[in-house]
């Protein structure tokens, strides 16, 4: 299967799409900076996961509304919790949401998009297209609320709602690409030697959409993190624990009283991660766009 992927992309200059992409990415400073920052965040998140730091996020103290100091780098909040620790711990929460949603929504979009593209024009395609149209027409916040109702406040209601709406974007892109691919010789050849339909779709065609999937998953990751913040603020997202969204939600009270620590640190953590991810994602899009070869 890898031979086939390579053969189709290697035809021109003997370099695969991935080799060229890697070469371009290495020379893209914006992209490298973005990737580096995301990597630091990832280490922070993993550190929280393995319990190296951030474990004391819920500890209270009698130091209320403190400004930045050596003990509390970003100050403390209304009940004396260390804002820095809370922001660090929230990194893990954000990565959890981002990874789960990006992985599953991209996978779902890839499978359904490939099926609907391969059978384009048939009833299967119509059903999938209809489903995408329907999911795109339900207002997002209402859909999240509806899923939360139906799942009786399951903590994963937010994730499930995001996965079931985000896949449509990936699916549309993959569908278009698969329609293009299925007319190519390698698919014809596979047909001719009697490869089964499932194998053609999932082993021959789908690997050729992997560059799209990589880019789409980074977009889904960013969208998930940003949605988490707004949903948690509206009371539809993270309910137990702490997240940047909950911190911002708390801080709406703080800012009116003139305490900006909480707001500033959660916003800054969120903003830096999202912009770094956007830079990384843009640079991957440029690098992996076969139209821009050369």
């Amino acid at each position: 299967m890898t031979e086939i992927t390579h053969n189709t992309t290697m035809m021109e200059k003997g370099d695969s799409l991935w080799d060229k992409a890697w070469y371009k990415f290495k020379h893209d400073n914006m992209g490298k900076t973005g990737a580096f920052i995301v990597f630091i965040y990832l280490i922070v998140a993993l550190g929280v996961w393995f319990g190296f730091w951030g474990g004391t996020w819920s500890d209270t103290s009698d130091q209320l509304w403190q400004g930045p100091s050596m003990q509390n780098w970003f100050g403390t909040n209304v009940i004396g919790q260390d804002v820095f620790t809370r922001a660090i711990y929230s990194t893990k929460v954000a990565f959890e949401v981002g990874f789960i949603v990006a992985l599953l929504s991209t996978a779902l979009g890839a499978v359904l998009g490939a099926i609907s593209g391969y059978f384009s024009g048939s009833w299967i395609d119509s059903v999938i297209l209809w489903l995408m149209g329907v999911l795109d027409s339900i207002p997002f916040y209402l859909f999240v609320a509806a899923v939360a109702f139906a799942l009786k406040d399951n903590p994963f209601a937010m994730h499930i709602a995001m996965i079931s709406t985000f896949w449509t974007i990936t699916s549309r892109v993959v569908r278009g690409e698969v329609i293009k691919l299925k007319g190519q010789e390698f698919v014809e050849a596979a047909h001719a030697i009697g490869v089964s339909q499932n194998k053609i779709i999932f082993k021959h065609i789908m690997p050729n959409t992997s560059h799209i999937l990589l880019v789409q998953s980074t977009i889904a990751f960013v969208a998930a993190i940003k949605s988490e913040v707004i949903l948690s603020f509206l009371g539809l997202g993270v309910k137990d624990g702490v997240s940047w969204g909950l911190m911002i939600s708390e801080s709406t009270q703080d800012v009116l009283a003139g305490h900006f620590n909480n707001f500033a640190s959660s916003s800054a953590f969120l903003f830096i991660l999202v912009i770094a991810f956007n830079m990384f994602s843009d640079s991957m899009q440029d690098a992996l766009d076969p139209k821009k070869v050369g």
Partner: protein
Amino acid sequence: MDILKFALRKLAGGVPLILGVTFISFLLMIYFGPDLTWDKLGKNPTALEIQEVRHELGYDQPFLQRYGTYLKELVTFDFGNSQVVDKKVSTILKETMPVSLHLIIPGFILGNVIAIALALFAAYHRGSWIDKLIMTGSVIGMSISFLIVIIFFQLLFCSSYGLDMFPVRGWEVYDSEDNIIWYQYLRYVTVPTLATVFVALGYNTRFYRAVLVEEMTKDHVRTAKAFGHTPTSLLFKGVLKNAMVPIITRIMFSIPLVVVSGSLLIESYFGIPGVGKVTFDAIIAGDQNILKAIVGLTAVLFVVVLLLTDILYRVFDPRVELK
């Protein structure tokens, strides 16, 4: 005549979409949704009382019949009373719809017009520092959460920690006869509009620039340039008009979602009594009748938008046939 036939066929084609949206939301929100029986009952209800309330709410009917009732409500635009406020759902919507429209329209128009202008500018100076500046700005705009922008702008413009020029929240812009007081309107609408425009600019500029750059690299533009057309006529006639199809698609399809989702956050944060706030309150309180109405109407709006988009394509591109 052709247009009418086309419109009717398009609307009929939208029926499966409306059925799908209403079915999924009915299933999730109402059928598996919160059971309102106990909210309506007093303490220690008898079995008979429970049954009466369940009958009143329609819980004892089979699934398809309940879904059918919902569709009938959607067609007749009669969703009954709100389950929280003692008002008809249609009256609530009639009162709040104008507020939402007044709130959204300036930001929506500005967000798109300014974005197209910036995108034209960036695309024309492609590769130069102006282009890079505009694109960097739009990535920054894309990366800031809408929520943060709202809080920050409120702090900056409305609080004593900032400029303190505008009211913090509320919407007191109508006089006793429901006419708009323009001075008040400007006072209340400015900060929400600035926030919407700021966020919209990031995404829109990027999208429009990509569309325009693609159009700009085409042969007819090169030819026009060679013939010595001025940049203005080149940009507006050669590029913008040809790029209208994707631009219209984007603008039109953002309408239904902007009306509900976009205003939800702004209205609940600024305490503006529009459709978004009604939706948010209904979500929190589990007011199913209002939610049913809003989901159903959004789906209808989507179908209407699909239709209008197709007709608009025809206006800008005579090659498109209304089939």
